[in-house]
């Protein structure tokens, strides 16, 4: 299935949001593999790199809105890391649009579906 997306969702917001999207039967592209992580702060550039090496076309990191992190600062840590890693990837000649960081709260099932849809569409436009 192309494009093949891996999504790291934080347990408290992103994963709950994805769950809500499922419970509410909101349609979104099926080409996504969701991995539940304790906090978006657990996701580091190493996970992103290994995902691309494993053959995924896109990496979607979903965390709580700024200020809402269950562990107070996990999402801001991830934001800094992803920002810097995207800059490195861009300069190294790898399209950093393939990495995406989004904030989805537990009540935003609709937003999660929209993000996946939008990301799938965007990835389709980038040549492999």
């Amino acid at each position: 299935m192309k494009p093949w997306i891996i999504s790291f969702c934080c347990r408290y917001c992103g994963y709950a949001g994805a769950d809500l999207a499922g419970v509410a039967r909101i349609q979104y592209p099926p080409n996504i593999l969701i991995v539940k992580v304790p906090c978006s702060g657990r996701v580091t550039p190493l996970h992103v790199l290994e995902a691309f090496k494993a053959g995924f076309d896109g990496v979607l990191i979903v965390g709580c809105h700024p200020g809402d992190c269950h562990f107070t600062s996990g999402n801001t840590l991830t934001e800094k890391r992803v920002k810097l890693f995207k800059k490195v990837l861009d300069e190294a000649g790898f399209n950093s649009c393939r990495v995406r960081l989004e904030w989805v709260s537990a009540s935003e099932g609709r937003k999660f579906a929209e993000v996946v849809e939008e990301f799938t569409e965007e990835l389709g436009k980038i040549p492999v």
Partner: protein
Amino acid sequence: MKVKIALEWLSGCEGCEVALLDSFNLLLGKIQRGEAEIVYAPLLLDVEDYDCADTTIVTGSIRTAADERRVKKAREKSGALIAFGSCACFGGIHGLADLADIGAVGEKTGRIPSETRLKEAVDPVWRVVKTDAAIPGCPPPRHMIDNFLENMLSPSTADHGKTVCDECLRRRSEDRKITGLRRDLTGVDDSRCLLDQGIPCIGFAVSSGCGALCPKVNYPCHGCMGFSEDIEGQDRGVARAVSALASILEPDVVEESLKDPVGFFMKFTYPSFKLRRKR
């Protein structure tokens, strides 16, 4: 039994050969005692070809089609193949030329004869043939070369558990917060950590072994020893280093502070980075 040694040099600056010659007395002793023999070394002998070697020391990276052919031949003819120096181990500094268009590289170097036609990208030795051991460094530190020549075939490689910071004597602050990075080295405090002073120093992620040579003389570490990973897993080291640096930067300066991200994180290891530019 005599150990047959071959020295193969690929694209590089020949600094590694000079470093090797600095420690050559050790090898000379072995040759005089009849324990070792040099069968092929373009730098030292006028020998064009050789039958076989027990150990081949490869310096430089694979830049041209000829380099690739020669390293494959060396692999066939030798028992152990040792990547010597950062270029052979990780691809080295000239891999940064891949960031530019290959046409631009050709323009700068003039007409290139077909034999030395540039490959599409610089490759470290391990991408083309299997390496048995690696001695990183630009050039490798003296004690590592001595140790290698002393023990022949059982080189001490970089210590993956430790970083340059472990060998650096500069004083580090406990709670690190970096509000900006600068490139000029004026007004450096001799005793404080360079990174704390806002000078981009990658020693925190790089294998130890050099004795923190550069930070000792107020110069930031460039990462010539490679990341604390196998030579094939250098890109993991890059990701870890990005993660570590981003964590201590203030949120609003993350994107603007580093002017040359690839030059900082992958000065020596860009050709080993799996997500590099593809042509």
